[in-house]
């Protein structure tokens, strides 16, 4: 029937056409072939090995049939006519000639016409050598040009956005970039302008192309019209070497190709992994390669007389072990704490977990840096894959804005929402970039999430949050499958909750309790835990988290691990906030930072400051000179993505490989080697001497990772990775046309020249022996066969007092006027952004968003400065008035550039007193307090007078 490999056992949902009602049979170039009834002719032909030339067609965008390159002869009742094969769907008994004389003549004609006005400046064009126009001219072009007239002229490259240049002379008007911006990214900041052969791609006169996803337009431009600032003139395709790898900037884990030239990383390109990123990347991920060259730590450093100085590895490690020994001798296992690790590959994380828990015996271990929620809960929930999420009936967003924190998840959701294929319900304290597409939005005040969820799920109640209208509430409940079925068991069918911290200033307990309630009340609901940090799921799965052990199990199931590791800590712990509080109280002797920078990256910087002050010995494993590393006593240089190997686990539990492309700076090491050395120096050697050995130890003792190892993933049939626990295959959606994706030179131009071109990628391919067949529901989705190894039951049964419903902190009294929402932007002051020169300018200054009413109340105007004090931190921020923000809420962003300090504000000036006396504006500080429930309290706000400050 087809010429794809027969044992494609991942196609359990029948995505490969089976001869049924969804299948049509047609004749292409004299061959009888079958295709799915929704398949486009160009795709059906390609699956059967017939390549029809094309430019405007893109497998992940709706066809427009504009460029006319893909014309073929198609039969109709009135004879054969030329039709665009990228636009036409296959039909029963259709007869197609793709290379008849007439079709060839048409294709040649189009190519000739595309080239007449093309500048043919290939030698200086970034795309030269990997250009589909160039390639197809070779294969389908007429040869000699007959065009002797003057070519069309436009000004040479114009900077259309902070990261992108446009050369309009090279543009072939295929509309790929404009369609991507509008249909996939929902950022239509570029559009066609003009008409006819004066048509250009253009921004508006007033707004630059600063979409978070601009780099994708560069990647899909089939010529060199769009180029990126970061890559321009960096290399030529034939000088490039490439490795397939996985982005580790956020937990989506986009598959990408890392390309290097002369030993330096020069470009990332998205790979068409149909389960994850479908060839897209966000700009932060795409341009993060620049960070490899800047701000690196080149040698181990140790503090001598207050200053960090380069030392030999042996000396640095001796210092570290001495510090550890003295801590251990001083007061037992709780003297040593380890935070960070989400930037590590699984093998590094595993060995550090083993060192921390098995050797040092400490439970003060956490990779999640305080912006996540309980790791046990996150891992125990029935998890949805990305594909399941974007094909769900209803998606409920109880998390931060995915566009800011999980950009490519947003990119997968947006087109589905824009086409009305999913119902979106938002339950968030502020609007997100998807709000305008939401079917319902419940605005929750900080501290009220649990009661809103409780009301929503309790169908006897007639109000929930901001939804007071009974009919609307009924609709929402219907979308949640709460009310259309009598059976409790079916509740939540087809619903996926994306859950995460939408407010870093609010205690995570509200979210955790809400999630437990949802899981209890909606038996069929699934969850996509929106923990955002790079390999956070890998780190958690490897045990770099309080109370968890490798393989997604907790200590109750620790026997296998204990057998290997020897001992396990007895105590329990609650994560980074608790660790830092202990440090601040002077209860910790050694703090080890695993590629983490709490000084800039933890929401409560004053706590970190105190922790650093009161911890005698701080060790930092760091790739870059970040603020925290520079405060440490010993700094150990480590590799960065691009320089290391291993496996990572993404948001859906998919394990894929990370591959080294370039050499690390001279003395940097991969973290597992450091863990291994320290263990050896402490006389408890692991006996593991390579990544492969670590990997097989993981697959041996980590339950969820049984059978998944570095070497098994490196087999080309598993290039998309596998979702663990095994038994869940790459979920293919019934009716989906694309199960195998080629590294198509047009879909992912730039890969055309790479060695891997043409190698088939199988989605989530898993050897037969591992498959536990999933059930297929009516909607055609293959359900995850649950094998969660931590269950919600065990959590509640264990009756952890602090997680029980009863002990949720009561919101503080409402006498204060504002509640704080602290959230994140894509471009923050993170190590990556600050060390990537083209991205650094994109970080904006701290702003405080207020509703109009509140701004008026505090006499603040748009753009004016406000002084804000939260706990012991004081900052000055620009005021932004957000007409869509509800009154009583103020919004700040984490890790942003601060306009100024607050020092002067604390000592009140004479003028201030005068104002106070006169009774207007700033009355008493108490009235201006923001009540933020739990984590950040004592926030005050008042107009800022910069003149006064400078005095």
């Amino acid at each position: 029937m087809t010429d794809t490999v027969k044992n494609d056992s991942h196609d359990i949902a029948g995505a490969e056409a089976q001869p049924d009602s969804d299948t049509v049979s047609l004749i292409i170039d004299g061959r009888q072939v079958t295709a799915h009834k929704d398949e486009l002719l160009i795709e059906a032909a390609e699956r059967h090995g017939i390549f029809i030339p094309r430019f405007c067609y893109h497998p992940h965008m709706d066809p427009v049939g504009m460029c006319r390159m893909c014309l073929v002869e198609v039969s109709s009742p009135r004879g054969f006519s030329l039709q665009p094969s990228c636009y036409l769907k296959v039909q029963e008994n259709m007869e197609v000639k793709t290379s008849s004389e007439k079709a060839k003549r048409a294709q040649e004609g189009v190519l000739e016409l595309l080239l007449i006005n093309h500048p043919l400046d290939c030698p200086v064009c970034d795309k030269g050598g990997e250009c589909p126009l160039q390639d197809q001219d070779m294969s389908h072009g007429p040869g000699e040009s007959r065009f002797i007239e003057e070519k069309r002229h436009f000004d040479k490259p114009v900077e259309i956005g902070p990261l992108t240049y446009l050369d309009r002379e090279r543009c072939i008007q295929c509309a790929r970039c404009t369609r991507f911006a509008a249909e996939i990214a929902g950022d239509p900041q570029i559009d066609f302008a003009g008409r006819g052969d004066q048509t250009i791609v253009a921004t508006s006169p007033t707004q630059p192309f600063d979409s978070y996803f601009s780099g994708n337009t560069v990647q899909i431009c089939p010529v060199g019209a769009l180029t990126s600032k970061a890559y321009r003139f960096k290399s030529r395709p034939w000088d490039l070497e490439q490795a397939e790898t996985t982005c580790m900037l956020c937990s989506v884990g986009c598959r990408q190709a890392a390309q290097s030239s002369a030993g330096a990383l020069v470009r990332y390109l998205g790979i068409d992994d149909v389960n994850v990123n479908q060839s897209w990347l966000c700009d932060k991920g795409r341009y993060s390669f620049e960070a490899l060259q800047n701000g690196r730590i080149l040698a181990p450093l140790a503090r001598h007389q207050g200053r960090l100085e380069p030392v030999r590895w042996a000396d640095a490690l001796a210092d570290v072990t001495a510090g550890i020994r003295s801590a251990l001798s001083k007061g037992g296992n709780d003297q040593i704490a380890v935070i960070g690790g989400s930037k590590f590959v699984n093998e590094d994380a595993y060995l550090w977990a083993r060192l921390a828990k098995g050797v040092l015996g400490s439970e003060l271990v956490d990779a999640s840096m305080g912006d996540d929620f309980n790791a046990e809960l996150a891992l125990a929930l029935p998890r949805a894959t990305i594909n399941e999420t974007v094909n769900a009936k209803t998606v409920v967003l109880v998390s931060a804005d995915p566009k800011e924190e999980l950009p490519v998840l947003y990119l997968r959701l947006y087109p589905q929402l824009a086409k009305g294929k999913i119902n979106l319900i938002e339950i968030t304290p502020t609007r997100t970039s998807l709000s305008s597409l939401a079917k319902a939005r419940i605005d929750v005040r900080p501290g009220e999430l649990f009661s809103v969820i409780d009301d929503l799920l309790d169908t006897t109640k007639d109000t929930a949050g901001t939804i007071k209208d009974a009919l609307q509430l009924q609709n929402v409940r219907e979308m949640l499958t709460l009310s259309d079925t009598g059976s409790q068991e079916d509740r939540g069918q087809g619903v996926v909750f994306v859950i995460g911290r939408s407010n870093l200033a609010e205690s995570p307990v509200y979210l955790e309790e809400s999630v437990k309630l949802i899981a209890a009340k909606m038996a069929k609901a699934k969850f996509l835990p929106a923990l955002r940090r790079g390999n956070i799921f890998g780190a958690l799965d490897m045990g770099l988290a309080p109370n968890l052990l490798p393989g997604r199990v907790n200590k109750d199931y620790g026997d296998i691990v204990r057998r290997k590791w020897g001992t396990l800590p007895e105590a329990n712990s609650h994560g980074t906030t608790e660790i830092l509080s202990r440090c601040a109280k002077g209860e910790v002797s050694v703090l080890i930072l695993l590629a983490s920078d709490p000084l800039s990256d933890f929401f409560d910087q004053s706590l970190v400051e105190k922790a650093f002050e009161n911890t005698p010995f701080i060790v930092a494993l760091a790739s870059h000179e970040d603020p925290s590393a520079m405060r440490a006593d010993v700094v150990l240089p480590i590799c960065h993505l691009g320089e290391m190997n291993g496996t990572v686990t993404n948001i859906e539990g998919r394990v894929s490989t990370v591959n080294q492309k370039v050499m690390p700076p001279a003395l940097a090491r991969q973290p597992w080697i450091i863990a291994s050395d320290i263990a050896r120096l402490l006389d408890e050697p692991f006996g593991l001497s390579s990544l492969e050995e670590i990997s097989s130890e993981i697959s041996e003792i980590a339950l969820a990772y049984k059978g998944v190892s570095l070497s098994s993933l490196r087999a080309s049939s598993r290039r998309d990775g596998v979702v663990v626990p095994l038994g869940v295959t790459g979920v293919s959606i019934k009716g989906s046309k694309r199960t195998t994706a080629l590294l198509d030179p047009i879909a992912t131009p730039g890969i055309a020249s790479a060695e891997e071109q043409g190698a088939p990628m199988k989605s989530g391919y898993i050897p037969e022996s591992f498959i536990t067949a999933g059930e297929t529901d009516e909607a055609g989705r293959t359900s995850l066969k649950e094998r969660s190894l931590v269950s919600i039951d065990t959590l509640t049964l264990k009756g952890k007092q602090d997680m029980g419903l009863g002990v949720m902190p009561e919101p503080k009294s409402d006498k204060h006027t504002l509640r704080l929402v602290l959230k994140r932007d894509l471009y923050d002051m993170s190590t990556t952004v600050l060390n990537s020169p083209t991205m650094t300018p994109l970080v904006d200054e701290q702003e405080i968003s207020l509703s109009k009413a509140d701004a008026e109340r505090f006499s603040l105007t748009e753009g004016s400065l406000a002084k804000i004090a939260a706990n012991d931190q004081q900052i000055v921020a620009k005021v932004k008035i957000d007409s869509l923000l509800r009154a009583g809420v103020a919004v700040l962003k984490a890790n942003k550039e601060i306009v100024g300090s607050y020092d002067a504000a604390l000592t009140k000036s004479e003028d201030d007193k005068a104002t106070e006396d006169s009774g207007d504006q700033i009355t008493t500080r108490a009235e201006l307090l923001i009540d933020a429930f739990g984590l950040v309290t004592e926030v005050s706000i008042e107009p800022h007078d910069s003149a006064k400050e400078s005095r």
Partner: protein
Amino acid sequence: MTEKDNYLAKILERKQPSDDGGFSEEGLERAKALISLYPKKRSALIPLCHLAQGEHGWLTERSMEEIAELLEISVAEVSGTASFYDMLHLEPVGNYVISVCTNIACMLGGAYELLESIEERLGISVGQTTLDMQFTLEEAECLGACDTAPCLQVNSRFFGNLDAVAFDKLVTDLASGALAGVVPPHGVLSRVQRVFSLMSGEQGEAAASNTDETLGQK
């Protein structure tokens, strides 16, 4: 100040009119009324562009931003769409936009000869604006008045059967204001406004009718 400076200053003045280039209050009301006529907001894009152009003579950046806001689309979509259409000007133009048809019927009637004499008379070539910002000259495609070839439009009002002499008189009349009743300011498409909202039997204000004097010409 040289003439050229004067010209540039005038252009700048038009680029940043004393108001911010956005809709007047009345314009905004009318914009909303126009939007309400369509099942989908974006349909009002061209009518709104005409409306803005009627207020400023051209499509200012600010008005495009306002249109984008009103229609809930991006500014790039407004400017990109507007730039598809010949009548929408994204750059300042003179008070009178003169569009000379040179298409087949007019050409056969001497349109290129007429155009040449117009260029001479105004001292500018096609695509340019006179230094005093009075006249902008365009070469138009068929305007649909071929029985009066060669013909042209001034601010979208027809004048036909022209030669150099007749054009000279036309320019004089325009300058003297003698044609004010016939040729409204550039961008004003209709001096009559729709007064009925959808499915209403009632009329918003006194219905302007075709017996109005303004309509009696041509």
